[in-house]
């Protein structure tokens, strides 16, 4: 049933008895043409585009818990395409374009809100690095503005301009950047995929792979039994190494914890997304009114979905340095996610060395914004066995060849991305 104001009005009169489940809670029913492991945003988007764009008939998404319970359900919802390196820029811009039409496409309001992303700079070298990035974006046809201190002040007068350890000099602004309601993205894709016949199987953990005598992947072992499939796509984010290990693969990935925070709800306070280039802090305000913020990763490998106090302090110190008005605003909740930190900070969308097994991983702490394009490109790869042009650089062998895409220049040290 289509969602609309009229459908809601009808519901108001009929006690909302007409609503169906947003997606079918399917039981495994193989064999499938494609099995996607992981019911996060990426897995569900992949399934949707497989069905919609490529007409693949039988697709299953296997999720070990409830869909959207991984990083898709715990990120700070920032979407942007302000990347500077070739390979990244065109991919994230494609994602942004998909965001811009997503809700009409899915018939689901994911609250995509292009309120702008402002990255502050505090010195000449940082300014020039942002200029380099902004210019690269413009070469790719992406909107980017370098704004000065006065312009920042007019956008966000409450920032600390006068007594700052690292005074604000200006910022790189992408007006088309912003936020989207993370859970809605998951549910919207799930509903749209389910409507196209995709089986979304929850509480179904993949515990192993089934191989043909020739060594090809032909199915998966799960907590709900063996499920056969023609191709298997992995989109398990923080658990990439775990699932890859079942296939005997090691990946250039470490799983790290990133914490995020939300404050009590407030009346509208912040215009858009603000990142503090000299501290470890970034913030936006949710539609519910909470300031959603975060900072650095904790810096150690973890699968625990929670972090420690030093980073909480570090993030809040950054917050207070940037906006001393939030001193009396209270943090309501904190949580952590398990991020698949790749060795150059950029993702992998590629065939694996094993026939029939495909990888979508290495999203670090930036894969939410990638959700639509990641699904789009992974579906393309799965359906056609060739990389989509905008994701062609996200190869697994780039670490061996040295064609790394290292935006931060930190090298193979995931704690430094």
């Amino acid at each position, binding site marked *: 049933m289509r969602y609309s104001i009229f459908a809601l009005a009808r519901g108001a009169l009929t006690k*909302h008895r007409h609503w169906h489940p947003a997606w079918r809670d399917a039981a495994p029913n193989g064999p499938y043409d494609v099995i996607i492991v992981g019911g996060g945003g990426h897995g569900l988007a992949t399934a949707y585009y497989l069905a919609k764009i490529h007409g693949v008939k039988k697709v299953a998404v296997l999720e070990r818990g409830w869909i959207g319970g991984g990083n898709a359900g715990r990120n700070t919802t920032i979407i942007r395409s302000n990347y500077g390196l070739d390979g990244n820029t065109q991919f994230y811009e494609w994602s942004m374009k998909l965001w811009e039409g997503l809700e009409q496409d899915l018939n689901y309001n994911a609250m995509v809100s292009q309120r702008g992303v402002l990255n502050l700079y505090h010195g000449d070298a940082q300014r020039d690095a942002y200029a380099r990035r902004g210019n690269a974006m413009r070469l790719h046809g992406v909107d980017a503005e370098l704004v000065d201190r006065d312009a920042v002040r007019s956008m966000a007068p409450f920032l600390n301009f006068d007594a700052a350890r690292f005074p604000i000099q200006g910022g790189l602004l992408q007006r088309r950047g912003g936020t989207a309601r993370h859970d809605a993205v998951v549910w919207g894709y799930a509903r749209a995929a389910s409507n196209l016949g995709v089986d979304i199987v929850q509480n179904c953990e993949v515990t192993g792979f089934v191989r043909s005598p020739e060594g090809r992947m032909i199915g998966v072992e799960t907590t709900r039994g063996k499920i056969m499939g023609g191709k298997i796509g992995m989109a398990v984010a923080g658990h990439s190494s775990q699932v890859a290990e079942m296939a005997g693969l090691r990946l250039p990935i470490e799983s790290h914890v990133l914490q995020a925070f939300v404050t009590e709800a407030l009346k509208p306070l912040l215009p858009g997304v603000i990142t503090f280039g000299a501290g470890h802090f970034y913030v936006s305000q949710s539609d519910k009114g909470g300031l959603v913020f975060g900072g650095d990763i904790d810096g150690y490998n973890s699968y625990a979905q929670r972090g420690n106090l030093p980073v909480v302090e570090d993030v809040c110190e950054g917050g207070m340095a940037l906006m001393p008005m939030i001193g009396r605003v209270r943090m309501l909740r904190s949580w952590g996610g398990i991020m698949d930190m790749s060795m150059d900070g950029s993702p992998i969308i590629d065939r694996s060395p094993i026939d029939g097994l495909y990888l979508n991983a290495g999203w670090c702490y930036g894969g939410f914004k990638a959700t639509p394009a990641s699904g789009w490109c992974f579906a393309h790869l799965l359906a056609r066995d060739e990389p989509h042009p905008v994701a062609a650089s996200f190869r697994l062998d780039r670490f061996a060849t040295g064609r790394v895409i290292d935006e931060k220049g930190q090298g193979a040290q995931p704690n430094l991305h």
Partner: protein
Amino acid sequence: MNRLESGGLIDRGKPLNFVFDGKKLAGYEGDTLASALVANGVRLVGRSFKYHRPRGILTAGSEEPNALVTLRTGARSEPNTRATSVQLFEGLVAESQNRWPTLGFDLMSLNNLLSPMFTAGFYYKTFMWPASFWEKVYEPLIRRAAGLGKASTQPDPDIYDKAHAFCDVLVVGSGPAGLSAALAASQAKARVILVEDDWLLGGRLLCEDQDIDGAPAVDWVRRIEGILTAMPNVSMLRRATVFGAYDGGTFGAVERIADHLAEPKPGVPRQRLWKICAKRTILATGAIERPLPFGGNDLPGIMMAAAVRAYATRFAALPGNEIVIYTTTDSGWAAARDLTGCGANITAIIDARASAPKGAARFAASAGIRVFENAVVVDASGGRRLRSLKLRSADGKIFELTADVLAISGGWNPVMGIGCNLGSRPVWSDAIHAFVLANPPAGMTLAGSAAGRFSLAEALDDGHRAGAAAAADLGFSPPPTKIPPCSEDATGSMPLWHVEGAKQKVFVDFQHDVTDADIGLAAQEGFRSVEHLKRYTTLGMATDQGRLGQVNGQALLARHLGKTLAETGTILSRPPFLPVAIGAFAGHHREMNFRPERRTASHDWAAENGAVFVDSGPWKRAQWFAIPSDQDWLDSVTREATAVRASVGVCDVSTLGKIDIHGPDAGIFLDRLYINMFSTLAVGKARYGVMLREDGFVLDDGTTTRLADDHYFMTTTTANAVKIMQHVDYCRQVLWPELNVQAVSVTEQWAQFAVAGPNSRLLLQKVFPDLDLSNDAFPYMSAIAVTWMGVPARIFRLSFSGELAFEVAVPARYGDALVRILMREGRDLGVVAYGTEALGVLRIEKGHPAGNELSGQTTATDLGFGRMMSQKKDYVGRVLAVRPALTDPMRPSLVGLRPAARSERLRGGAHILPLSSENRADNDLGYVTSVAFSPMMGSWIGLGLVSGGQGRIGERLRAYDPVRNGDVEIEICSPVFVDPEGVRVRG
């Protein structure tokens, strides 16, 4: 006034004035804001989140979802403050929130009329057309209607600080369980920290008329408090909340030092963040009473029974004159007993259970209270306050009662949030009809009602046992103690999640307006995990984090799914236990004190001489020295750079990382660190070196000097100093422990100054008259250790500027003296002090790479150091540096740039494209890394990384800089602009 004549823990001798929504009111010392409002007969205190329904005070504790106010005004205003947790002070000002224009007449309550449409998740289903309307129309409206209080936009004027503490046993909560735990552990001589959220110790004992040891329980509390206070091994934090458990027995707590004052005394923090390290922890955090489901259960006047009891007992304030009690628990009856004891008028008690507890009938009869057994409340009505309620007995008969207060008691949820922080999941207990923490993390015990043992006797016993066990576990010997006898309280209860036939909305999450219908709809729409339920309906996501209503909602979900609560489960609590001010986490690390500042030995001298400082990591460095005749910064920089090339300049380079490397194997060690050789370096000589990361990209560069056979002195870039020290330690401790090498940072020991320019030798000779600094005696790349006026000093013949130049190092204590002497002695040579900008000009003129070129994305070959890469030895990065992509000849490599029209300006970060090409990424050849105005060239010059690099020298390209509206035609040239033959440096 609803204040009782006597009783309670308030001080009637100390009246306090306060203002709520502009109205002047009074309370007493010992009141909370909520109890003072109750005493003043204030009913309506807030509006709900979504429907803007009128709401009153519901609880007497920190779980309060309704009575949220903005406390104080101006820069000190604090949105969303729970009136139930605010200790009243003289002059307190509070405002209600989320209403417009007034609390009584809130236009936004129109939402309530539209509520049939505003079901769970309604916005996901609409507001999609037209697409552009979301940001412009719908979202601003939704945002304005949502949110609660308004935050101040002025800096928080108060200060915060941080503290650390260690203990054997941490006891959280000071009710009967916590107090007896603390007593038992401390009597065993363990170091104990007791943390209590309230300003008084005692927990529920302050609010209940109980006896311990034959006397009122509060007397026992005072006695134990006295004993604990006298013990040197016990610390107590009052007005402090443990907000989270972290790894390794670390706990966070926030102490509210001045929140009960109008404002903090000058210099005294408002709050303090405690990090507590505990070997064992006892959670004695109590339990929270559950609301009951019926239509209109959110009307002002409907309150938790424990809260009504607390207001009467502890605060001597009665919330109403006609009180009805609705309970499914024995504690509802205990509340009735205490209330009657205070003289409250209870007209009826409704118990949904088949029969009331033993002795109830007798008590009710003697107090003249009507009793309804086996009956449920169906609907409550009134407008902005409760007036009457409708109940239905088991046989379907409907009764209507009038009441201004309905005290409800639906069972108890143990408070165990902190125990879940490390991932332990609560499990459902059919025995007590509540979730309990069966598997707390190692080292943690729950005691008393937090453990689901709800009676006073159990709390005393449990606390004692937990305290003694924790101490014994750590090797202390707890002395035998006797647990005091106490009054008995029955703890029977029956869960009640749903009522049939309610006409009005039945609220589950009060703050977020989640109703039983929303839960049903969510289940119908497939949101069947408790986690999906939470996210779709926002159940438990409000400021009370579902303390009050979450379990009720989860039970409804289970009911819809035909499952048990044991099967559907509950969600994990996360820190903070109660919302904590961001300022408290930041402590004094804000504004100028966000991060420490490092100052060089010449800082004060530089400041005296017009220096403008720039942040270089944590360091403050002189960027340039402004003199009155300079028009602008470029004038200063040009003047400084010109003077260096013409005569002599002095620049503080102390911030470079300096590492002393000692040991018999120091030379071999450096060979493995750098791409080039150092073991072959002669004593008294310096060499420029480049280090790679193991992935083959450049890590850092700098000069390293051999001061003795077994002693090298390494310098690193300022930015990488700490990282390289760590790298050096890694290499010697982990990679090659067999090498006999010692290393230590001596960055801070030496103040080091570059003395550069054709007259540098003259100047230095004046300061070191006894030294032979001639070219023959002290050629380029030499170094010498000397004694200068009794202190050790080092002189290096190094040059970053390309001029004849030296660097002089003295112990940092003498740096100030040295720079003053250099400047004094150089006066007649026209010496200038130069800062980092002029330093940059000089190095760009010489094509020396620095931070912008050492981006972590460049190889040695990119930067022109390919030939330095030794073939004779292994070193970090050697193998991976020769991978195809790192040796691709089309990689961007270092070149010089000049604007074709010499008057034009270059800018760092511009991309480089062919002259007549489209502005497209596939035409991108590279970018400008560094620029400067070169006095020598009379124009802007730059360095850049350009595909095809040196092969393009002489080519015309363009620098594309749309983000600053600058397209400049440029000419590619050698990166060495000045003195390419290197004559000056050897002069």
